[in-house]
Each structure stands twice: as C-alpha cells, then as structure tokens.
C-alpha cells in the first residue's frame, strides 16, 4: 500500500483527504497541522507521498516542501492548493513539488494524481 502523510492546518481537510485515500487503498501514516510538524512526521514515518497544504501557520507548505526536499531529495510532495494560488503552486513546482491538487478537488483527481506520482518511481 502507498503510504501517505497529510499536512493541512484544517482538521476538516485532513479528514476529507484521509477518507478519500483510505477508501482507495492508500495507507495514511500520519497527519500534521503545520509545516513544522509535517517535517517532523516525514522524518518519523517516511511516507511515499506527502499531500501538502500551502497556507498554514508556523511553517507554510512551500517552506515545508523545501525542508522535506532538503532532507530527502527523492521526496514526493503533492501540493494541495486553492484557486487563486497559481503563483504559489508554480513556486512549489520549481522547488520540487511533484504535482498539485486544486481544492475543491474531485475524488478521482486525488487518486489519479497520487497513483501516477507513486508509479513514477
């Protein structure tokens, strides 16, 4: 099973993503409510994929992405963004994000994105 770490400051979003993933045979190995905790959890449970919200307190998603990539250059981070955050998503891609999901997302978008990222080896 593909191991996923969910980083999002909104408990609602974490729950929503977790439900989609668990239904589609992903294993959610951890949740974090900001970038800092996300980085810690990444080191702890070395997930295959991270879903990373962008706007978060303490440490933003972009910062956390940079830190995670510094720690593990093969890290697979998928940004979770909202409409209007185009430039941030672009910045994330330049900094190593493998792909992105746009909120409000469709279930199969997440599944498709994560599966293809995982398959890309």
């Amino acid at each position, binding site marked *: 099973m593909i191991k996923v770490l969910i980083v999002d*400051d*909104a*408990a*609602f*979003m974490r*729950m*929503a993503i977790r*439900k989609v993933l668990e239904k589609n045979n992903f294993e959610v190995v951890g949740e974090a*409510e*900001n970038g800092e905790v996300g980085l810690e959890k990444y080191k702890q449970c070395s997930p295959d994929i991270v879903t990373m919200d*962008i*706007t*978060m*307190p*303490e440490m*933003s*998603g*972009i*910062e956390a992405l940079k830190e995670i990539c510094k720690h593990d250059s093969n890290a697979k981070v998928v940004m979770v*963004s*909202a*409409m*209007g955050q*185009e*430039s*941030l*998503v*672009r*910045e994330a*891609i*330049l900094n190593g994000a493998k*792909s*992105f999901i*746009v*909120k*409000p*997302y*469709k279930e199969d*978008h997440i599944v*498709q*994105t994560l599966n*293809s990222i995982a*398959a*890309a080896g």
Partner: protein
Amino acid sequence: MSADNTMESLLDMFIFETSQNLEQLEKLIIDNEKSSEFTDEAINEIFRIMHTIKGSAAMMMFGDVSSVAHSVEDLFYFIREHSEDHIDCNGVYDLVLESIDFIGDKLDKIKAGSNEEDDVTAITSKISAFLTKLKEKHQGVSQDATNNDTNKIAADKDDFSDGIASQDAGGNRFKVHVLFEEGCQMESIRAFDLVNKIAAFSTNLSCVPNDIMDNDNSVAFIREHGFDVYFNTEKSYDEVNTFFENTMFLRKVDIEEQKENELANNVSKAEVEAEASIVEPSKKQIDVAENVSSSDMHNQAATIINVHVAKLDKLMDLVGEMVISEAMVVQNPDLQGLDLENFKKAARQLHKITTELQDTVMSIRMVPLADIFQKMHRIVRDMGKKLDKEVRLEIIGEETEVDKNIIKHLSDPLVHLMRNSIDHGIEDKEDRAAKNKPQVGTVTLEAKNAGNDVLVIIKDDGKGLDKNKILEKAKKNGILKKEVSEMSDKEIFNLILLPGFSTNDNITEYSGRGVGMDIVVKNIEEVGGSVSVESIEDAGTTITIKIPLTLAIIDGMNIRVGKSTYTLPTISIKESFRPKKEDIVTDFYGNEMIMVRGQCYAVMRLYEIFNVDPDITDLTEGIFIMIEIDDKRACIFADELIGQQDVVVKALSNYIKDVHKIHGVSGCTLLGDGSISLILDPGWFLSRQ
C-alpha cells in the same frame, strides 16, 4: 462505512471547525479594533482563516459560504500586499464582522438541515466595492508599481533560460499539442508543470501561448484550444510518447516530429513570443506563504482531544445508572435486618469510588464561561457604535466553569441583560458629563463560585432603575400584589422580573422588542437557577444570576405521599417540622396558613396539588417541609420524609412536559428500590404563592 456516514462526520467536522474559526476571527477583530490598526500577524491570520473556511466550504458544496469567505480573503490579500497604505480599518471591521455573522447564520441553518443556498451578492458586492475603492486609492499613491513589475518580468524569466537560450540545438525537434481534461483546473499551472518537466530532458524549449502565468485569458485559451510545446531532445518519438502518456489530466496529445526546414520558422516565431512570456507574477505573492505566522494554539493540540458531547452525555448517563445501581444493592430490601459488617465496609469503599467517578465525569463536562463571556465584546462593540455610547466591558472570573448543558441556557439571557445594561443603563455621553461621571461607561461581567452554585453578575455604572416608574408600570399592568408602602426597594426592583412587565418605553432594535426580563428568568429557572436585581440611582444596576454547578446529579430529599414518592433538592429545603394545632390558622377566604416563628405561610398539600391519595390528611400528623429560594419561602405538606440520597436527574419526555403542561415537576429519578420519584421544582411552588 457508508457514504452517508462519511458525509455526516465530515459535515460535523466542517461545522465544528468553521465555528471555531469564526470565533477566533471575531476575537481577533474585536481585539484589533482596540488598537485601531492591523498588525501583520492579524492580517495573515485573518487571511489564513478565511482561506481555510473557503476551501472547506467549497468541498462541502456550500457555495455561498465559500464565496463570502473568498471575498474577504481577496480583501485581506490586498491589505497584506499593501500594508503600507492607510486603510479605513472601521470599514474593514464592519465588513468582516458582517461576513462572520453571515457564515455563522448559515452554519446554524446547515445544522438545522437546510440545504438552500443563500443569495450572497449583497455582501460580496459590498466587499468588492470596498476593495475597488482601496485599489483606486492605492493606484493614486503608487504610480511606479507598473515599472517594478516590468523589471520583475525581465528578471524572473530566467527559469527557462537554459532551454530557450541555448541555440546549439541537438537531437530531435518535437511539436506537441496537448489538451487538458475538462475540469482539471489551473490549466495554466498544469501547462507550466508540463513545460518544467520537459525542460529537464530538452533544449530549445518554447511554447504557445507563452504567457501562461500572467495572462488570465491564457487559462481560458489553454482550456479551450490546448497548448503547444516545441523542444529538442535526445529522446526518441516513442520515449516522448511514453512521457506524455504518463502525464496526468491530458485529454488529447498530438506529437509531431519536425523536419529541419519547418524548424526555423517555428522556432523564431515561438521565440519572439517567448520573450515576453512564461513569467512569474509579482514576487510578493510567493513570499506570502513564507510570512504566514500564527497563534500558539496549534502547538497545544497534542495533549487535548475533542470528544463529542453525546459521548460525554452517555458517560454521564452510565455513571448515573451506576449511582442508582449502587443504591439498589446497598439498600436492597433482602439485606434489611442483617448484620453485615464486611458487606458494609465493601459498600463504603464502593461508594467512595462512585462518588469520585461522579466528580471526575462532572469535571470533564465542565467548561469555562470564557467562551460566552468573550462573545459579549461583540455586543458591547456593536451597541456602543449604534447608540453612540462609549462602553467598556470588564470581565472578571471568566475561567469559572459550569456544566456544558448550563452554558447553553446562559447565553441568550446574558446577551439580553447585556443589551439592557447598555441600552437602558448606561447614559448618553451628555448625561454622563452632566453627572460628572467618566465619559466611558463600564459594564462588568463577573463570574464566581459560591458553594454548589455559580454566580454570574452583570453590573453597570449607569443611571440605575427608576423606582417610581417601575411601580407605576406594575400598577398599570396589574402585577402589583402588595401595598407599595410595604415593599422594600429590592422587592420593587424585582418586579421587573415578573411576566407582563417591561419598562421599555421605546422599544429599540437591541433590547426590548416586547420581550421582557421574564424570558431571562424563565431561561435561568429552566436550569434551576434564579435571578435577582439590585440598583442604586445614578450609581448603576446589578443583576445577579445564580445557577447550579451541574444538573445531572443532585442531592435530594425523598418524601412520600400515599404510594407516591417525590424528591426535593436538599439545597432548597430550609427545615422540616410537625406543627402544633394552634399554629394552623385559616384566613378570611378559607385558605389554610401556618405560623412559623411569627411568620405566616400558605399551606401546600402535595396530595391536593398532584391529586393522589394520601395516608395522612391531618396537618399535625404529617410533615411540613419549608423550602426557600432567595428569601422566598413556602411550606409543603407530605406524609413523611424517606431520606436523603444523591439522585440522578432524568428529563421528562417532551410529551409530558409540553402536551400535558405538568407544573411543579422538573424531572424524575430512579430510587434504590427501582421505583420512580418525581423531582419537585421548588421555584414553581414559590411562584404559586
């Protein structure tokens, strides 16, 4: 787990988290308003909260909530980017608070099961009009903004310079036309992502349209017509094909391997366009996310868990059942007359543990009053503004805790009392000046523990209550029961608590509305509390609410009438006694009265009130129980006292409460022998006099 279940728990989470966010936001605004300027942290925090609400609401398909949150987010985006500008903070506060109210109302509707989408144009257009004004003002301030942006374009487009600049193109030349899947969103970024990935294995890269990031129209163009990429690579056609096959969200891909002679044309054309293209927008936007700082709240999350109230209610119920079962075992009729020393020892140990368990469960259900106290800031703010009065709210003892269920009943009365204090208590600025009072009026909201009760005190330094006006009004409404000369000040003031009394000459938007203090009293009495009023002319009014710490388990006195058992809260019992014949008198109308230490009280025969068959009708044979709440006393007549016991309060079903309108009974409980006892409501007996 079924799909319905999933949605439900998501909905619960959405409502829970969004309400929390709204509360935090409101507090942020009220706190900020005092300093009349936005701190960077506050701006970031407001932006972040609105962003979260927008995202969650969009997921739950609450389009109206999402678009209101989006408007506020946009507004704060601008404020954050142009924090150097002077911004009309008051206008912003009003807009945000209005939005909070809208979303809060909407949450209530959602909770009530409504799915209707509300019209939000009124509020969103207000926000966007405000934003437009800000933008116009801003353009007046900084003319050189455009210049800066052009410089940025030149500097930032280095990202693809490797690909574009290197003219020593090797390998095969490809032209690829792609169409993205419908509804995949952010097509421009997907194109950008694609270009970025191709750049990793290609040279001489260019694309059409090339202004994929900057031009809003390019998103629509790409969505409709697709997107062309030109590049040179060492990879074969098949390899390139595989790359695109593995790329997500592509509806259609046309790969063309180009011949040398076509090449020159395309490259030059594409390159010219590329000059002004693939550009990062303002760098500022990117810095945004890095700046986001926040509250410390999130760090504490690890040691605190959220538990659904229903689970706590269930736990409380179970502990209640256990208390009853304990009584059933210890007071079991089979044990009567037996000498069981070891059993009693064990029973005492059991009792110790159940009591401790009770206390612990109770303490879990306790919540500080801080939440509802903090909400009063908003009331004070709104009313002060509307009525043009300067009012300061002082909060004392907000850490005082009461049972979760009581909080629910306390909120509305507090709002009402607060509004009364500001509307009718605190004087106009001119009047205060004339009376040599400080210009800013003070309303104090205080909570403290007093034995098994919590006192909540609302005190203002306003003009106080007008005794004559109260008496006049009471007389007019026919609620005066005593001679005026016999009444103490306190009794006069407490007249305002009676049903059918309302001193509001002019019903304002805030207080009054034809609803009087009696509604407040009713609410408080529902949870076994009481209200009292004190006032001093020109010094202010103090209203004290007394509420029990908890509702679930009370210390009760069981009494018997015939075959029925009743329970009175021990705390309301002043004494019990058997009267002498000469103490019983009958008044002019034939009403029975009883003299106790020179005071006369009406006799209330329980069997008459509840229409049951008693064993004893002779007043000197049975027992009197004197109950007392706030100086009001009454004497209840019953057959005998059974004994004192902790009883678990079970609510009466709505059918009994509403349809049959049973009075004088606040609930019921199970006794040790398994029989049912009705819990009497002392307040009702006292008001019956």
